[in-house]
């Protein structure tokens, strides 16, 4: 029996054949992990070890469609990824550790990750020793199916690179993991560019914007210049947008004209006005309105709840989308524009027959980066024909919808994390 067990163990625990360029190690999207009780490190507190692993899993979750949850209760065989520390011969593993220096950890085919506790592992950004966070991210990459990657900046390089502050997942690793598990897809509640005036050190008033995507109780700041979300996102809504409904909104509208500069959030039958200066919703705005207010009161003729909305500066109208209808609300006249509501297809006709979202739009977004309006629905988006498009191609219909594309091929790495990992 013992002989066969030895053979069995050595075969079943064979290190993964790394000749491929990686492979999808898991078919499910939510994976359980645990720091095993017999494998605690003697160098960091247990809470520190678990926090670092929670952060390491979250970093993979931020750039892939996988989600990770710490599971300290299920039977061990139900846990997908088991982490533990040991020295020399350890944890039933047939690859002994070599002591301080050289090999600091390894990962096994069946989801076991072992750390050599003879190494001097330290917490993130501590400047000395071996960053447990970097090593954990590397080994988790192996368990997910990634081989070593020989590109500067990749966390999957075999040799350890001394700690640099603010270690993050670079483009190579993001694309490598998405090559295995696909991109991050999903519907958004709203997307918008948040605009505000800032004073430069020289006292000039300049205008800035940042792009945000919101989904349920989370949001991402999207860094257009680097084609990715902000490191560390998503963040819980109430962390960054104080006073709006914590479980998500239906729409964001920024009315910006000669006389007005007002940001509104809509949810259900109500809406809030946002105080950019103090980064929270108004309780009472400068015009004396108290919030939340009813949509029917603030925008007579518009029926709630709405699917989404956006403000079009070309005609000073807010376009409210509800099912297959669109309501153009004239802000100056404070009433519905003549002839509205209309069918969405009549106001935003498809350029290619049949390629149209029909109704139930998730988000209507005017992007300063692209100087264009986008209608998002599910995992797709349609770009609205702009004046410049029509100048080049006059045959295009006004406000026509260009053929759809995939959201995750235009805005990258907008990935969920497990609800338990939203607030580390």
């Amino acid at each position, binding site marked *: 029996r013992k002989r066969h067990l*030895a053979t069995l163990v*050595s075969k079943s625990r064979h*290190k993964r054949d*790394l000749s491929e*360029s*990686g492979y999808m190690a898991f078919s499910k999207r939510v994976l359980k992990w645990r720091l095993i009780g017999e494998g605690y490190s003697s160098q960091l507190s247990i809470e520190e070890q678990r926090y670092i692993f929670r952060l390491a899993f979250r970093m993979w979750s931020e750039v892939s469609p996988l989600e990770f949850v710490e599971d300290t209760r299920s039977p061990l065989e139900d846990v997908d990824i088991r982490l533990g520390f040991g020295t*020399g011969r350890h944890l039933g593993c*047939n690859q*002994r*550790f*070599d*002591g*301080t*220096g*050289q090999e600091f950890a*390894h*990962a096994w085919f069946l989801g076991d990750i072992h750390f050599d506790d003879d190494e001097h592992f330290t917490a993130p950004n501590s400047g000395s020793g071996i960053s447990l966070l970097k*090593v954990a991210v590397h080994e988790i990459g*192996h368990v997910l199916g990634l*081989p*070593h990657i*020989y590109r500067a900046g990749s966390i999957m390089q*075999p*040799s350890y690179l001394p700690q640099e502050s*603010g270690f993050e997942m670079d*483009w190579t690793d993001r694309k*490598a993991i998405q*090559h*295995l598990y696909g991109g991050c897809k999903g519907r958004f509640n709203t997307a918008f*560019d*948040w605009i505000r*005036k*800032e004073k*430069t050190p020289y006292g*000039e*008033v*300049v205008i*800035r*914007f*940042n792009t945000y995507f919101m989904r349920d109780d989370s949001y991402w*700041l999207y*860094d*257009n*210049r680097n*084609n990715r979300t*902000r*490191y*560390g996102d998503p*963040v819980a809504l109430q962390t*960054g947008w104080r006073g709006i409904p914590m479980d998500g909104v239906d729409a964001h509208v920024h009315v910006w004209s000669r006389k007005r500069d007002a940001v509104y959030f809509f949810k259900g039958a109500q809406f809030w006005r946002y105080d950019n200066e103090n*980064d929270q919703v108004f309780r009472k705005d400068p015009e004396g309105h108290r919030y939340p207010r009813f949509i029917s009161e603030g925008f007579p003729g518009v029926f709630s709840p709405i699917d989404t909305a956006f403000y079009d500066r070309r005609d000073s109208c807010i376009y409210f989308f509800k099912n297959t209808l669109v309501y153009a609300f004239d802000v100056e006249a404070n009433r519905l524009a003549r002839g509205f509501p209309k069918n969405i297809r009549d106001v935003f006709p498809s350029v290619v027959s049949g390629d149209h979202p029909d109704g139930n739009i998730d988000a209507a977004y005017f992007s*300063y*980066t*692209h*100087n264009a309006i986008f209608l998002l629905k599910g995992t797709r988006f349609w770009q609205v024909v702009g*004046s*410049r498009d029509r*100048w080049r191609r006059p045959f295009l219909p006004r406000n026509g919808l260009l053929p759809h594309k995939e959201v995750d*091929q235009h805005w*990258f790495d907008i990935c969920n994390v497990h609800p338990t990992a939203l607030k580390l």
Partner: protein
Amino acid sequence: EKLFHNRDHSDVLNSHQAEVITDKYTAELFLSRYGFIKPVNWEEIQFEDSDSSFNDDFLDDLQDTLQEGTSVHRSRDAPQDGDHDDHSGLTESQAFILALKEFQTMSGLPATGVFDEATKVAMNKPRCGVPDKEIDPDSGALDAENSSSDTFNETESNNTTSDYSLGSAESFKDDIFNVNDTESILISNDTSMNYTDLFDPILNNTSLNSSHDVNSQSVNISARQSVAVRR
């Protein structure tokens, strides 16, 4: 162990020191451990010291039953000539040189095949215990980088008349400093979106910045290190 040791344990021999790679033998062990010397169906079975007797007869049995062409490598014995499978007729030293060159290439060193000082240093660096594998540059994994990175180009205002480009500087959100996430708005008054007159109130007290006026002190602080920054 000694009954009393120095206060700072400096005299306690740290038995757990990884064996430094200093010569061809230890280098060969390293190369075979991390997949540079390719064993053919090499089973690495390690047994406890205590039951060495068990090892011998078990290995003999195993050896008898295994098919021709595989070899059982005892992890601690010095590899005998017969222990290594020939790489397609290469002598062992040729196989070693080949493997050394591959390691040097992957480590960004000149592929000399000579076990020189730089190679020694590279082998003694802290590293992951999973065998090495270079990702094939032709694999799809890395192609996406080229395709998606040219999907975007910064908003170009190709209109030469009075473009308003609104400079970029620190952007604050949720009291977290995100300088590198700031975009500046290039809004030209061409026919595209007819904004010409919309910005007068802002223009009155907004200085015109060159469209390349980017705040150069971009500080790469992410949401992870939330920095409580008051306005």
